[in-house]
């Protein structure tokens, strides 16, 4: 669905590259996560993929279209949800969606259906300018679903949303993906990426450091450790035990046999820990 090869981009002629020699592929039907801290080059890459930024150097095809000279028709196939809400404040939520739906050459989803999907149906005829930040974000999100996109670009789709709404948004993404929509997800939220993505790419300083599935990364970079909190002679004891070292294995067996365990969990690595390990930098 997306092919990127030798991609470079600089905002000023002769200036530093915001994206350097990026190369990756996104297969049809997968959720591909683009992870990196602010200023890493995520939005620049997405800008090029969505035609908002010109392709300066490299080869990029999106949904079969060469992005060197993108045709407007490609936008009938893709949907873009922006990190910053961008809706017309003087128009109602319904008017916003109806306006954009008329710009497409393909059948679009009914505005009411989409608003109901994100719990905005009760304020459908209220001006978007009077919406809270989260409501505007949800309106921006569903606008990107108007044309039932084959390829869906999502930039920080859950940022600024309360946990319940964020969970709802993640469910919608999973559901659309199950229907066959390919998703390109840009985020610095490793929990969202971990939960949703089939594969992730780590980008920092404009360079892609690695691409793999969250599971493979955890297996590769995670430590085979178990954290245990148990009662021993009336005292609460916390221990970190290796699943590989023989002594630790025996100790774990002993603790389990006593049956005084209060908390026990495996110490698999989070994507953030792996990111830090790989890039030497945090995701913030």
């Amino acid at each position, binding site marked *: 669905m997306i092919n990127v090869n030798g991609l470079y981009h600089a905002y000023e002629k002769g200036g530093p590259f915001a994206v350097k020699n990026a190369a990756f592929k996104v297969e049809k039907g997968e959720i591909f996560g683009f992870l990196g801290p602010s200023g890493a080059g995520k939005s620049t890459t997405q800008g090029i993929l*969505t*035609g*908002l930024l010109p392709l300066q150097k490299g080869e990029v095809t999106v949904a079969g279209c060469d992005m060197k000279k993108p045709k*407007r*028709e490609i*936008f*009938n196939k*893709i949907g*873009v949800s*922006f990190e*910053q809400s*961008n*809706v*017309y*404040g*003087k*128009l109602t939520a319904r*008017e916003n969606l109806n*306006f*954009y739906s*008329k*710009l*497409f*050459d393909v059948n679009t989803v009914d505005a009411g259906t989409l608003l109901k999907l994100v719990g905005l149906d009760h304020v459908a005829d209220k*001006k978007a300018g009077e919406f809270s930040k989260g409501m505007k974000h949800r309106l*921006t999100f569903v*606008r990107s679903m108007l044309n039932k996109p084959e390829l869906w670009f999502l930039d920080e789709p859950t940022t600024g949303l309360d946990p319940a709404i964020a969970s709802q948004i993640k469910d919608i993404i999973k559901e659309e993906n199950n229907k066959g929509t390919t998703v390109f997800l840009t985020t610095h939220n490793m929990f969202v990426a971990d939960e949703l993505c089939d594969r992730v790419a780590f980008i920092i300083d404009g360079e892609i450091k690695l691409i793999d599935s969250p599971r493979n990364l955890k297996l590769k970079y995670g430590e085979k450790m178990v954290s245990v909190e148990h009662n021993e002679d009336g005292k609460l004891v916390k221990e970190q035990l290796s699943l590989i070292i023989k002594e630790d294995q025996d100790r774990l067996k002993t603790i389990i046999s006593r049956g005084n365990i209060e908390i026990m969990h495996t110490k698999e690595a989070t994507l953030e820990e792996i990111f830090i390990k790989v890039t030497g930098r945090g995701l913030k």
Partner: protein
Amino acid sequence: MKKILTIIGRDIKSGTRDWLIIYLSIAPILFALVIKGLMPGVESTTLNVVMQHDTPADISEYMESYFDVEYVSDLEAMNDRILRLDDVYGVVYDSNNEGFETIMQGNESADAHIALGLILDQYGLSEDTVLPVTVEFSDVGWEMSPLKLYGANIIILFTTVLGGMMILLNLVEEKMNNTLSAVNVSPITRTEFIIGKGSLGVLLALLGSIAVILILDFGSINYLMLLTSLLAISFISAIVGFGIGVVNDEPIAAIASMKVTFVPVLASIFGSMYLPEKWHFILFWSPFYWAYNSIRDILLKTAQWNQILLNSFIILVLTAILFFTLRKRIAHGLK
């Protein structure tokens, strides 16, 4: 075309919820009404009379050589006409006594009826008759009230600038809401978007100007010539509107920037009015100078197609120069 109409429809909908845009839309009409309100006083500098349709032809001819004459069907209609806001004298010819009866409202300009009386007294007298006072009318070349002519021309030129302001405000709204990026990832082309965004401003200039012409009662002017001239000058205001709108995300600051357009407009109008003909070349750079001249001739009904087309061509050339100067800024701002 559907997408262009969608953009226009959105701008109209959004505009009706913005007092600034509503004001811009009705401003030309308000200004025209103010001038119309002032005109009766100004037009009373000429003598206007109302007579009945059955007035003998020779008397009508005599009266029309001195006055602006209106005709009504009967005395009742004459009284109604006299009672209206402006100064009009009723003149009834009494065929039995071969004399005139004048009807006034009572609030007319102090000495005007004396002139009317003197001219009526003069009717039918032989050239040899010696009168104590001789009445003569001289024509200084004015075809209509200067307030009406210049007022309409100024409002029309400013209406084209207001059209540019409307484009500017709609673009500022896009910048404020950051919605251009959302439009840029839809299948609408850049050209369709620009035409859609520009149309409302050009439409405002055309409709506003025609409203001014109708309100000020210019009668049977050549509307095709007016349309040609208005279209030409509207483009330059539209380009200025785009040039300023795409780099501003605050309406008041954008309007303040747009006010620089008033300089060439005012310089063109007052330069054309007050500068001797030999100095007019210093205004040739301003498209509003050429538009002002075109509209003045159209309103005076002295315009010729070749002159209108030449002026419009000059305006379009100047517009093209401005467009090529601003095109990168506009293209960059629309991203």
